[in-house]
Each structure stands twice: as C-alpha cells, then as structure tokens.
C-alpha cells in the first residue's frame, strides 16, 4: 500500500494542508465548500444535541439521588447516545466521505439459564457501563464546542476579509482613517487592506478545512471502536494473515517435495526408456543387420562356385530384411506411435486394441483431442502397457478401455480438465507395479505430469487401472 487510508482522507478533506499546490486554490476548492457545509451543519446539529445533553445528563444524574428515578433517565440518555453516534457517523460519511466504523456493541449480560431472559439489574449495569455510549455523550459536548469554535473562527476570517474590502473602498471617509491613519498615504492603506482581505480569505479556507479534519478525527476517536477493540482487530487480522502465510508455505513445501519426487521419477523413467531403446536396437536391428551382412557376404563368395548355396543365402537374407523392418517398426512405435500424432488418441487406442490378442472394446469420448500431446502420449502408453500385461499375465477373456475428459478440482491436485483412461479386464487380478516394471515406469511418467495412478487388482477378480493426467501441463 502506497497511501494509507488516513492520508487519502486528509487529501480529500483538507487538501490545502497536505497536497502540494492545493493551497493556491484553497478558497475556491470544492473541499472548502463542503467543509463550510459540514462546519455549519455540525454547529447547528451538535449544538442542539449538546444542549439536550447538558440538560438531560446532569438532570438524570441529579435525580439518581431521588428514588433512583434518574437511573432510568441516564439509561435513556445512553441508549439515545448510541443512536446519536450512528446518526453523526452517517452525517460525517455523507458530508466528508470519511467512513468511521461502528464501535463494538454493548456487552450484554448473560441470559438467565432458566427463564431465558436477561436480569434487569445486569442489563441496567451494562447500559450504564457502556463506555462507547459515554464516549458519544462526551462527543456531543466536546464536538459541539469544537464545531462552534471552528465555525466562529472561519466566519471571523471571512467577515474580516469582507470588512477589509469594504474599508478599502469606502474607508477614507471614516473617522478611523481620519484619525489613526492620518500619517499614512491612502493608496498604501488600500493596498494593506486588500492584502489583509486576501490573507483572511485563505485563512478562512484553511481553518474550515483543518477544522473539519479535526472534527472527523475527534468523531473517529469517540464514535468509532475503542482503541482496545481496534488493537484486537489488528491483532486478529495479523494472526489470520500469519495463518494464511503459514498454510501457503506448508503447501509450497509439500508441492516442492512432490515435484522433486516426480522429477526424479520422470528422469529415471526416461532413462529406463532410453536404455530399453538402446537394448532393443543393439539386440535387435543391429544384430540382424550384421547377420544380414554376413549372409550377403556368404552369398557373394558362393555365387561363382555354388549358385544353389548363394541362392539359399540370399533367400535367408531376404527374410532377415523383412524381419528387421518389422522389428524397427515395432521399436519406433514404442518410442512414439505415429498414429497418435496423425490420427489422435481415439484411433491410436483402436490400433492398440486391434493388435491385442485378447478382445478389447474401446470407448473413446468426444473432445479427447483437447488434451495436451504429452497427456495423450501418457494415456496411450498406459493403455499399451496395460494391454501387454493383460495379454501376458491376466488370462482375461475381454478388456474394456474407456478414455474420457473429466472436470475435477480436488485438494492437492491441479485444477481443470483431466484426461482419464480406465482399463478393466476380467482376468485373474493380483497385478502390482513392481519396481522396474513397465507399470512402475508408467506411474513415474504419469506422476511427472501431475497425474494420478490407481491400480485395483484383487486376486481372482480382474484388474482395473485408472489413470488421470491434466489436459494442460
């Protein structure tokens, strides 16, 4: 915050005192006009209230000695004082824009547990002991005096200015000019009078602006919350702020731990994947190509002396080429399936289903293409791995794959749309993501995308794998 409410209040009510340059136009400033209105209203209204106060409060206090009747008068006065305080706060807000908060309410006595009503004497005591009501009474008296003082001073300045002008215009006929100012040249007297008039005009503006500001301050002190209540409110606000800050810090720490974990999981998942690709290439395509070279070499050497052997070697080599191509195709699909980027998740899942030895039913909702490519790839590989596992271990007769977009905002998760895939089979269950297994690698991959991974696989009752990843990462 660059400006406190108090300083902006000062700038609104008494710009001539605080805003640089505002002094020049002080007499014509709108703030001066509203300050005059305020001072005049305050004077009339507070004077009335204070007259009533001057009569009612001492009278009631005096009558306390007589049969205690005065107590009732005091109660009425103090209850009325709260109403007066509210009215005065509204008046100040209306005329100056300064909003004074309501004070803390009167502390009510406890209800009687049996009748459910408050005890009369306790209630009486609470009214008489209402410090804020007494403060309002004090304001009625002091505020009226102050308003009178301000208005008198301001009016005196304004009147002085008018008098000085009149004197400058018609004063040379006066006896004062003839006697006291005999020695002074008349034009100098006129200049002096006009100077006095100008000073008085500015003085009246300053007095009325400053007086209004002080009136508002006085009202704030006596009609607003007590200083103890203000301190309590400040302490509460600070405590609340500290609680929020601590909660934020805690959740940031938790998030950092999660990020550290998922990052290392992602790194190790990527590493495992790279090693798998390297192994696949080394054990597969590379060996096949070397063997192919040998085969072709044999064929070439045999070409002259043993055409039949050469033809057999070439036949063999041809088979090798075809198998190498198939192997490379599988390998490339394992790195990133072209169908996923070309035709989308729906088509890619159908392609996976078509390759599965176990019958797979794919249900893909609309809008899957809205998901981030990384999310779609994760979903694809989750389904691919799940189907591989089903084929290898589950002894299932059917599999159901469901891909959908769900809106979810749960605690600790990233808000917004999430891509969900559910793979359900009717096999023998008992699956678990062992460390280093394909499922564990996928879990790392999903976690790195802030996704969730849930595997339910009770023995003998099928397996249900649910994975959700945020659509946008």
């Amino acid at each position, binding site marked *: 915050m660059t400006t406190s409410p108090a300083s902006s209040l000062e700038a609104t009510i008494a710009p001539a005192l605080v805003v640089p340059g505002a002094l020049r136009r002080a007499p014509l400033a709108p703030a001066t006009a509203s300050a005059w209105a305020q001072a005049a209203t305050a004077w009339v209204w507070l004077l009335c209230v204070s007259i009533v106060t001057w009569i009612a409060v001492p009278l009631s206090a005096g009558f306390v000695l007589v049969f205690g009747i005065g107590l009732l008068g005091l109660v009425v006065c103090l209850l009325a004082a709260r109403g007066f305080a509210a009215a005065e706060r509204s008046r100040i807000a209306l005329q100056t824009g300064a909003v004074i908060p309501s004070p803390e309410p009167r502390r009510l006595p406890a209800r009687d547990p049996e009748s459910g009503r408050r005890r009369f004497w306790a209630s009486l005591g609470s009214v008489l002991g209402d410090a804020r009501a007494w403060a309002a009474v004090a304001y009625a008296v002091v505020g009226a005096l102050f308003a009178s003082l301000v208005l008198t001073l301001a009016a005196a300045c304004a009147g002085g200015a008018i008098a000085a002008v009149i004197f400058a215009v018609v004063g040379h006929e006066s006896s004062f000019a003839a006697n006291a100012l005999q020695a002074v040249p008349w034009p100098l007297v006129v200049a002096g009078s006009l100077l006095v008039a100008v000073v008085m005009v500015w003085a009246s503006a300053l007095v009325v602006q400053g007086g209004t500001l002080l009136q508002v301050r006085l009202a704030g002190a006596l009609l607003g919350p007590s200083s103890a209540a203000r301190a309590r409110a400040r302490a509460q606000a600070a405590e609340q702020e500290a609680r929020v800050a601590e909660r934020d810090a805690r959740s940031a720490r938790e998030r950092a731990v999660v990020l550290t974990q998922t990052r290392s999981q992602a790194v190790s998942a990527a590493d495992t994947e790279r090693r798998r690709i390297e192994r696949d290439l080394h054990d597969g395509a590379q060996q096949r190509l070397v*063997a192919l*070279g040998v085969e072709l070499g044999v064929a070439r050497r045999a070409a002259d002396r043993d055409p039949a052997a050469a033809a057999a070697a070439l036949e063999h080599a041809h088979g090798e080429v075809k198998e190498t191509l198939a192997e490379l195709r599988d390998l490339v699909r394992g790195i990133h399936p072209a169908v996923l980027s070309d035709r989308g998740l729906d088509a890619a899942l159908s392609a996976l289903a078509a390759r599965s030895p176990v019958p797979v039913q794919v249900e893909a909702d609309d809008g899957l293409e809205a998901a981030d490519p990384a999310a779609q790839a994760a979903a694809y590989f989750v389904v691919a791995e799940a189907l591989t596992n089903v084929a290898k271990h589950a002894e299932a007769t059917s599999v159901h794959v469901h891909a959908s977009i769900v809106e979810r905002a749960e605690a600790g998760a990233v808000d917004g749309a999430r891509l969900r895939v559910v793979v359900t089979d009717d096999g023998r269950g008992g699956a678990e993501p062992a460390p280093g297994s394909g499922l564990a690698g996928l879990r790392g991959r999903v976690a790195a995308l802030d996704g969730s991974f849930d595997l339910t696989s009770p023995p003998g009752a099928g397996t249900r794998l649910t994975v959700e990843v945020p659509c946008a990462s």
Partner: protein
Amino acid sequence: MRIVIAEDSVLLLDGLSRLLAAEGHQVTGYRTADALVAAMSRPGAEIPDLLVTDVRMPPSHTDEGLRAALHLRSVHPDLPVLVLSQYVEQRYASELLARGASGLGYVLKDRIADVDTFLDAVERVAGGGTVVDPEVVTQVIARSRRTDLDDLTRREREVLALMAEGRSNTAIADRLVVGMAAVEKHVTSILTKLGLPPDADANRRVLAVLRWLDENGARS
C-alpha cells in the same frame, strides 16, 4: 582350423558359423562367456586355433566376453583371440593389447558384414598377427594432441594408420598400391619423425605406435 565363437545373438552366431564353416573351418559356438570359459577350462579340453568373442554378453551385458578373453589369454598365452565389439572403446583395445599384441584382434562387429575383411582378420590373427580396427586407430589419432603429427605428410599419415591397424609393410604396400621400397621409406621417415625405434615387426610396431599416440596425448 578349429575356431571357437562366443556370441549371444543366435542369428549372428548362426551366420558366423556358416560363414566360417563354408571356408572349411571347424566351428564350435557358445552363447555365454561362462559357457566358453567352462568348456575351455575342462581338463583335456582342446585349445582351438582361434577364439572369436563378442565383448558384450549375458548376464550383465557389459564386458563379459572381453574379461573371458583376457582370462583365457593369461592361461593360454598363445591362444589367438579376435574380439568383436559393438562400438569403439579404446579402453578395451588398451586392455587387450597391454600384454603383447601378437595373435590379437579388436574389430567392430559391423566389420563382419564386410566378409572379406573379416576373413582376412581371422587369418591374420590366427597366424599370430595383430589387427586393430581402423575406427579405433582413427579415434586414437583424432584424440592425439601430439603436434609431431603435423610434421607428417598426408601419405605418411595413411601409412601410420595402417601401421597402427597392425599391417605389415607388404600389406601396406598392397593397400596403397605402391612399391615395398616406398613403404619402407615412409615407415623409416615416420619412425624418425616420431622418435620411435625402428622395428620391422608389425606386431611390436603397432604397440609402439598406439602407445605413442595414446601417451600424454589423449585429450580426455
């Protein structure tokens, strides 16, 4: 001759066996280094005329084949060994050649596809020669920071590379299609420029050259 092959890839083992058998060799194959060592260590086991082994084999797929070869060489110092490597690893070459270079070969697996070169390497190693893959030589020369190399002419560098591969003067002359006298002149010039002792034996020469290239020169 009798050749023992250790190679985990069935395809390649099969291809190699047929290739060598077609050349009239008697081939025995093993698919792991352990099986190889066990068979060779049996009492009364015949020592083959050549051992061909892959570096990377099960179970850990690191350097089982190389360690088996080193072990067998320490037991039978005269056993010619031809090591096949998936990729150039200068450390492997250094380890192999550390205790004498005769009857040793270290070539990239991909060379097998160049059947003639491979069969040539088989013959040379079995005959007690040294074969170092040109790739290894290129790498060693590339990594060598020795400024003396700048003094060599282009032709001398070619000759140096062939020397490092383990070629004899005759083979170098054939390869570069020049006369023996010219090769001998180049070799003498190279050895003089590099400050190496003159040595006509190709096997000892390859060691000297490789060590010279490697010594204090490797950028790593």
